[in-house]
């Protein structure tokens, strides 16, 4: 069991700082008030009761002293009545009891507590506060003693001292009952005042808590606002600093941290943008000389046939590599356009089956690729980008996979899936997660292949630009399969041109 006390757990578990503050203030206020009022109340009550008791005992003692000497025992009924009469006053009633007889009167000794009577019977002077008929009363009981006539057995105040040797008990018991109602009322007034004090203290505490809460919570709330904005990516978010307290320190620290963060992120972004711009610039700079070289590759190809030996081979090599370099630079430019966010879609309503066939036809792949393309599927796409996706996937399958290479489309309610699969061994598990990485080569031994190494990355970026995606997997039956998922908002499978 943990030893946290329930109050602390409650405070700790309370939802908000405001609640905790309120509860703490209220507890503090009420407990202080309760302590002060309670101690006050208990003291005042004791004093009041003590005073009432003292007065009562004193009164009854004085009265007993005025009694005439006690005659022979047993006393007559008249004597009992007279004693009772003399001992009664305005505020109290007395009864005299001798064995089974008693003085006449309203007060019935049998209603008195038995322990009290036993104690008196043993010769002890006793007083006790009891409730009679629902009213608080003080009962004083004593035995008259023989010897010095009329002296009570004990001076008031003592209760259990054995009687002195000078006198002896007479078995004549005196009980005096005095109402404590006036005192009770005073005490009740005291209690009411104590409760009132508590209530006022509670109200004060709550008011103070609300005020203090506002003072503390406003900066906290401000800090939370700023933190949220920062979390949402607004690096310019700052907290307003008020005052010079610890919360202001926290706000200042927050602001300094945010400033540093903003600076660092700004630096990083600038560096990243510079790097991207550099790639874009390099690609574009390469493009102009390449344009000149590309323009004359046909000349080289034509002349290579007639050039002798080495010169011819060199010319063919330059021509071939110029084409590869062009492809690489074009792919780099394409990638840098995605990186800089400048790639845009030129959407058109495209007959997907027709577009895929055109892509295959244009590259002379129609005979090498099996197709399963439902007719009449029209989707809103960028046809050039669809061509790039399909061409890259099929080219990849033809180069790295094994026949049969197939292209299939599946129309789903909300999207269009285009699958490009092959019959090869599939992708190795360690290759699969990296297959879309730029310049990723599954086979390190084959340092350079026909492709630029950017084809699959570009295909995926193109799919994503459409709001879709490109995924790679292995078919249970063997062979890799790349699936293009393209969203088709508003198009129905039955659409035709």
């Amino acid at each position: 069991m943990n030893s946290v006390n329930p109050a602390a757990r409650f405070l700790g578990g309370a939802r908000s700082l405001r609640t905790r503050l309120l509860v703490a203030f209220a507890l503090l206020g009420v407990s202080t008030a309760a302590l002060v009022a309670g101690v006050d109340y208990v003291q005042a009550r004791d004093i009041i009761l003590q005073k009432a008791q003292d007065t009562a005992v004193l009164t009854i003692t004085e009265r007993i002293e005025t009694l005439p000497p006690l005659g022979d025992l047993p006393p007559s009924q008249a004597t009992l009545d007279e004693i009772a009469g003399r001992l009664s006053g305005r505020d109290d009633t007395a009864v005299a009891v001798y064995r089974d007889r008693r003085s006449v009167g309203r007060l019935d000794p049998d209603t008195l507590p038995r322990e009290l009577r036993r104690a008196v019977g043993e010769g002890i002077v006793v007083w006790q506060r009891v409730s009679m008929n629902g009213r608080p009363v003080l009962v004083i009981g004593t035995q008259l003693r023989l010897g010095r006539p009329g002296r009570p057995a004990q001076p008031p105040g003592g209760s259990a001292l054995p009687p002195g040797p000078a006198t002896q008990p007479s078995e004549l018991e005196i009980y005096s009952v005095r109402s404590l109602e006036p005192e009770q009322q005073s005490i009740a007034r005291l209690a009411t005042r104590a409760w009132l004090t508590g209530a006022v203290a509670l109200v004060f505490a709550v008011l103070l808590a609300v005020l203090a809460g506002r003072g503390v919570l406003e900066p906290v709330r401000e800090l939370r606002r700023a933190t949220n904005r920062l979390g949402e990516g607004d690096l310019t978010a700052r907290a307003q600093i008020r005052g010079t307290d610890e919360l202001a320190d926290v706000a200042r620290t927050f602001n300094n941290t945010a400033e540093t963060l903003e600076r660092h992120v700004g630096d990083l972004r600038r560096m990243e943008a510079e790097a991207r711009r550099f790639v874009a610039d390099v690609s574009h700079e390469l493009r102009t000389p390449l344009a000149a070289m590309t323009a004359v590759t046909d000349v080289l190809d034509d002349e290579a046939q007639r050039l002798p030996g080495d010169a011819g081979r060199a010319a063919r090599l330059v021509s071939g590599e110029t084409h590869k370099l062009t492809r690489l630079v074009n792919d780099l430019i394409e990638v840098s356009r995605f990186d800089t966010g400048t790639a845009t879609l030129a959407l058109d309503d495209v007959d997907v089956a027709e577009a895929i066939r055109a892509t295959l036809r244009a590259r002379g792949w129609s005979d090498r690729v099996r197709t399963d393309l439902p007719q009449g599927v029209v989707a809103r796409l960028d046809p050039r980008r669809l061509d790039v996706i399909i061409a890259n996937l099929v080219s990849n399958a033809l180069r790295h996979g094994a026949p049969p290479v197939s292209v299939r489309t599946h129309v789903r309610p909300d999207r269009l899936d285009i699958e490009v699969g092959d019959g090869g061994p599939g992708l190795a598990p360690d290759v699969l997660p990296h297959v879309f990485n730029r310049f990723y080569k599954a086979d390190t031994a084959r340092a350079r292949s026909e492709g630029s190494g950017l084809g699959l990355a570009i295909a995926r970026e193109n799919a994503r630009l459409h709001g879709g995606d490109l995924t790679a997997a292995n078919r249970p039956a063997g062979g890799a399969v790349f699936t293009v998922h393209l969203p088709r908002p508003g198009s129905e499978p039955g659409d035709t041109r």
Partner: protein
Amino acid sequence: MVRHEPPRAVDTGARALGSAEIVGHVSRVLLIEDDRAVRTGLELALTRQGHAVDAAETGEQGLELLRATPPDVVVLDLMLPGMDGFEICRRIRTDGDLPIIMLTARNDDMDVVAGLEAGADDYVVKPVQPRVLEARIRAVLRRTGGGPANVGPPPVERHGDLTIDRAALMVSKHGEPVGLAPTELRLLLELSATPGRVLSRQQLLELVWEHDYLGDSRLVDACVQRLRAKIEDDSAAPVYIQTVRGFGYRFGPL
């Protein structure tokens, strides 16, 4: 300013085959390109394809050459120092119907759209393979001569206020001749050959631009805009060239 004359006689079989189509008519190409190497390379390639090439380094030079020896087609780099390609495009368009092919560095940015709006007929992206440029030049040159291959409808047709003379390649509205660039004219002829039938952008690209696959549909859209500006009463509410959303374009119904 360098002028290359095409090779005279048929000196190799391979080249003769490539130039067979234009034997008897040497087309004159004005090439405006500021980069020396690209200019030289393209000059070389186009000359070997059998064209007479005039090459200019700047727009001003190009316009001068254009007046001196009117070419059949202009190949124009958009990014030029001084007067840029768009301005040259506009000037050529105000003067006449000379076909223009733009050379652009990028294929999906605003340059293409701006160039097409300025009146270019087609565009190629650098670095361009000589045979691609050659195919585009031939396609655009074919638009200037002869009507569409399908010879069915009568030579002179009336569509509302519009009169189309397929034999003379003349279009007039309210009897007034309308000056159309070759591509615009070809587009109008293809569309009006089958009134009421919808042609997709890809179909039009194949018919008019002779792009074998995946042409840029912005070519069609830009050309339709220019055509509408010339023949429609209100380009915003076209009557002759209507857009069929999701499918393409249609001539009429009036």
